[in-house]
C-alpha cells in the first residue's frame, strides 16, 4: 500500500497552481497517471521517487515512511527501491548500451540478465553502441530495461512508449504487464493514450491542473457506456457541407472520419471544431481481423 | 655533505672560478646557489640550508648578522666596479655621456631598489648631471643578470653592469666596454658571512673556504674578474 498526501506549488500554463494529491495505491496495482500536458504527472512521479521534495507531505510505502515533511523524514532516492524511466531517457552517454545496463545491475544479480533483457527488446545487435548512435525508440527501450534491471518494487514510467511504433509499443506493454505480475511490481505509468491505459492499467489517476480530477478503474473513468451493440463516439466536426436539402457533417473521431447526414436545421448548429457525440440506435457492427 | 654557498648574481662568475680552484687545492666540493641578495636574505631568515653567503653589498649580510643568523660579522671580500657596455661598435670611450647620444634608445641599469649596482649606476649618472637627459631611456633590470640580458638580446643599446660580468669567460669578445670612473659612485663593497647553518664538519669546510677567499690565490681570482680588492687586515684575516 502506498499512501501519498502531498502539496507542491507549480507554475502552470494557466498561472500558479497547487499540485495537491491525496491518494492510496494498493500494492501490485498498475496505476496510470493521465492528464493534460503540464498537469503535474512528471512532478508527482519525481516526488514519489524522491527527486523532488514537496512543500508539505507524507509518503508511506507498506507502512514505511518515505517522506514526512513535518517530521523531516526523507528517505534517500537510493533506498526507495524504484525503477524510473525518464521522459528524456537519461541514458549515460559515455557508456555503451550494455554498460548502461550493467551499471544498473545489483552486484549480486546474475549478469545473464543483461543479455536476456537485451534480447527481450530486440537490441542485442546494438549492445555495444553508445546512446548517441541509437534512434529515439531504441533509446527508450534501453531506458526501460535499465529501470527493470534492479527488479524494483515500484516502477515509475514517464511516457515510456511515446516514441515507439504500434507494434513495438504493444510488445513492450505486454512485457511490462508480464513483468509487473511476475515480480509483483507496483507500477505507475504516465500516459496520454487512453487505449494504452485501458490495456494495461487497472487504475487511473486523472490529474488536472495539479488536482486529482477522478480516479478509478479505466473503464469506469473514461465513461464508456457498456452496452453491447451500442456505439457512442466523441469527435470534432471537420466540415459541414450542404448537399441538396441535407448537409453532410464530417466528424473526426479517433482514427476515423465519419460522415453523418443531418438536416439543414441541425447543420446550422454545427461548426467546424465543435465537439460532438455520435450515437447510434441501430448499430450492428461487424468485426474483422486485419 | 657538500658546502653550500649562496652567491649574489654578479659574483657568480668569480665564485665559480673560486670553487674550482678550491676543489683543486683541497679536494673539497662546494655547490653554488645563485640568487639575488634579497632572496637569499629572506631564505636564510627562514632557515635555508646555506653555509656561506657572498652578497652583492654589505647591507644584507649586516642585517643577517644583526639578527643573529650568522656566526660572525660580514667582511668585505671584493669591491665591485661599474662598466659601461655596448654590443655595437660605437664610441663609448667618453663614458656614460654616450648614453645621451641620438643613437641610443635604451640604457639598461639595475634596479636600485633591489641591486647595489643599480644604486651605483644612478649615482654615477647623477654625478655627471645626465639624469634628466637619459631618464626616459633607462630601463631597469631586476638584477645585474637581467641588465646583461637586455643588452645581449639587443633590447637595450647600452648597459651599466658589473665589471665582473664583462670579464667572465662567457662574455669574452662580446661587444666593448669601458670602466666608469670609480670616483662617480660609492664603492660597492661586497660582504661575505658564514651562516649559522654551518655546523660541525660543515663549519670547518665553510671556514676553509672563507680562508681561501682571502688567501692570495683567492684574491687573485677576484682581481682577475675585475674586482677591486679590499686592503688585507693587519692580521691576515685568521679567525
Amino acid at each position, binding site marked *: 500500500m502506498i499512501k501519498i498526501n502531498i502539496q507542491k506549488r507549480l507554475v502552470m500554463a494557466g498561472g500558479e497552481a497547487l499540485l495537491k494529491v491525496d491518494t492510496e495505491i494498493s500494492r501490485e496495482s498498475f496505476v496510470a497517471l493521465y492528464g493534460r500536458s503540464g498537469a503535474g504527472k512528471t512532478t508527482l512521479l519525481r516526488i514519489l521517487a524522491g527527486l523532488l521534495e514537496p512543500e508539505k507531505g507524507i509518503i508511506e510505502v507498506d507502512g514505511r515512511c518515505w517522506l514526512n515533511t513535518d517530521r523531516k523524514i526523507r528517505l534517500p532516492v537510493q533506498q526507495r527501491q524504484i525503477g524510473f524511466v525518464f521522459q528524456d531517457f537519461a541514458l549515460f552517454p559515455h557508456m555503451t548500451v550494455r554498460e548502461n545496463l550493467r551499471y544498473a545491475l545489483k552486484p549480486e544479480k546474475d549478469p545473464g540478465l543483461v543479455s536476456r533483457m537485451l534480447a527481450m527488446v530486440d537490441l542485442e545487435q546494438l549492445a555495444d553502441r553508445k546512446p548517441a548512435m541509437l534512434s529515439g525508440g531504441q533509446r527508450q527501450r534501453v531506458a526501460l530495461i535499465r529501470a527493470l534491471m534492479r527488479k524494483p518494487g515500484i516502477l515509475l514510467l514517464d511516457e515510456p512508449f511515446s516514441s515507439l511504433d504500434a507494434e513495438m509499443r504493444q510488445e513492450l506493454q505486454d512485457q511490462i504487464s508480464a513483468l509487473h505480475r511476475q515480480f509483483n511490481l507496483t507500477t505507475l505509468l504516465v500516459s496520454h493514450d487512453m487505449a494504452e491505459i485501458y490495456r494495461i492499467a487497472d487504475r487511473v489517476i486523472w490529474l488536472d491542473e495539479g488536482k486529482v480530477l477522478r480516479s478509478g478503474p479505466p473503464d469506469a473513468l473514461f465513461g464508456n457506456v457498456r452496452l453491447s451493440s451500442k456505439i457512442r463516439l466523441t469527435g470534432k466536426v471537420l466540415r459541414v457541407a450542404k448537399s441538396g436539402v441535407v448537409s453532410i457533417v464530417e466528424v473526426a473521431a479517433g482514427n476515423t472520419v465519419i460522415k453523418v447526414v443531418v438536416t439543414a436545421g441541425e447543420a446550422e448548429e454545427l461548426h467546424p471544431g465543435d465537439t460532438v457525440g455520435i450515437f447510434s440506435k441501430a448499430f450492428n457492427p461487424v468485426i474483422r481481423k486485419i | 655533505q657538500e658546502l653550500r654557498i649562496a652567491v649574489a648574481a654578479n659574483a657568480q662568475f668569480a665564485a665559480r672560478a673560486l670553487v674550482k680552484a678550491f676543489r683543486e687545492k683541497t679536494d673539497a666540493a662546494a655547490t653554488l646557489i645563485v640568487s*639575488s641578495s634579497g632572496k637569499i636574505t629572506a631564505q636564510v631568515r627562514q632557515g635555508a640550508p646555506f653555509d656561506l653567503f657572498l652578497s652583492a653589498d654589505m647591507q644584507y649580510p649586516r642585517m643577517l648578522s644583526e639578527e643573529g643568523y650568522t656566526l660572525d660579522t660580514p667582511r668585505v671580500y671584493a669591491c665591485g666596479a661599474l662598466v659601461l657596455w655596448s654590443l655595437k661598435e660605437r664610441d663609448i670611450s667618453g663614458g656614460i655621456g654616450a648614453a645621451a647620444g641620438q643613437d641610443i634608445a*635604451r640604457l639598461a641599469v639595475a*634596479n636600485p631598489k633591489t641591486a647595489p649596482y643599480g644604486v651605483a649606476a644612478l649615482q654615477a649618472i647623477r654625478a655627471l648631471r645626465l639624469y634628466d637627459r637619459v631618464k626616459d631611456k633607462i*630601463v631597469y633590470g631586476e638584477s645585474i643578470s637581467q641588465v646583461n640580458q637586455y643588452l645581449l*638580446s*639587443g*633590447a637595450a643599446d647600452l648597459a651599466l653592469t658589473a665589471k665582473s660580468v664583462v670579464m667572465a669567460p662567457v662574455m669574452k669578445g662580446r661587444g666593448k666596454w669601458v670602466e666608469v670612473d670609480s670616483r662617480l659612485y660609492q664603492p660597492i663593497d661586497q660582504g661575505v658571512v658564514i651562516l649559522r647553518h654551518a655546523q660541525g664538519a660543515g663549519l670547518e669546510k665553510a671556514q676553509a673556504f672563507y680562508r681561501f677567499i682571502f688567501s692570495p690565490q683567492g684574491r687573485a681570482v677576484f682581481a682577475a674578474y675585475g674586482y677591486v680588492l679590499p686592503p688585507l687586515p693587519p692580521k691576515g684575516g685568521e679567525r
Partner: protein
Amino acid sequence: MAIAYQPLWLTLRLAVVATGLLLLVGVPLAAWLAASTSRFKAVFEAVVSLPLVLPPSVLGFYLLLAFSPTGRFGGLLSSLFDIRLVFSFGGLVLGSVIYSLPFMVHPVQAGLQSVPASLKEASYTLGKSRLRTFFSVLLPNIKPALLTGTVLSFAHTIGEFGVVLMIGGNIPGKTRVASIAVYDEVEASNYPAAHVYALLLLLVSFGILLLVYTLNRRLFKS
C-alpha cells in the same frame, strides 16, 4: 612608507586589455580546436599549452629576443610599423596574451565540446549562420567555461610578473605593474611595504573576482 598607486592602475589596465584580447583570440581558437577533426589536432592542442612549461622569465627572455628591434620579428615590426614591443605597454600586453593563452583556450574548448550537437543543428535549421549560432547559441551555453577562462586569464595576468618583468623593463608608470612593485619590495627586504602592496593587490583582486562571481550567479538565476 609611500605606496605608489600607479602600478596598481597599470596592472588593472594590463589585465583588462590582455583578458579582452584573450577573449578575442582565444575563443575563436578554442572554437576551431573544438570543431577540428584534423589529424594534427592533438599537436595544436599541445602547442597551445607549451608557453606554460617554460618558466615565465625564460619565456620572457625568448620573447625579448624575438621582440627586440635587432631580432627578426621585432625588427620587422619596428621597420614596417614603427612598433616597439620591448619596454612598452604593448609588449606587456602581447607577452601576457601569449603566456595566458592556454588559460583561455582550454576551458572554452572543453566547454564547447560539451554542448549537445542538436542545439547547433536547431539553430542552423532556423536559418542562422554559423557565426550567429556561435554567438547566440554556443557561447551563452558555455557560460561557466567562459567565466573560468576569463577569471583564470585575468587573475593570472594580474599575478604574472616573470614575462612582464623581462620584456617590460620595470619603467615606472609605463611597465612597472603591481606584481613587480611587490616583488621589488620583497627583494629589497622592505617587508612592511611588501605586505601593504600584497594586501592591496589581494583586496582589489578579491573584490573584482567576488563581483564577477556574484554577477554570474545573479545572471544565471534569472
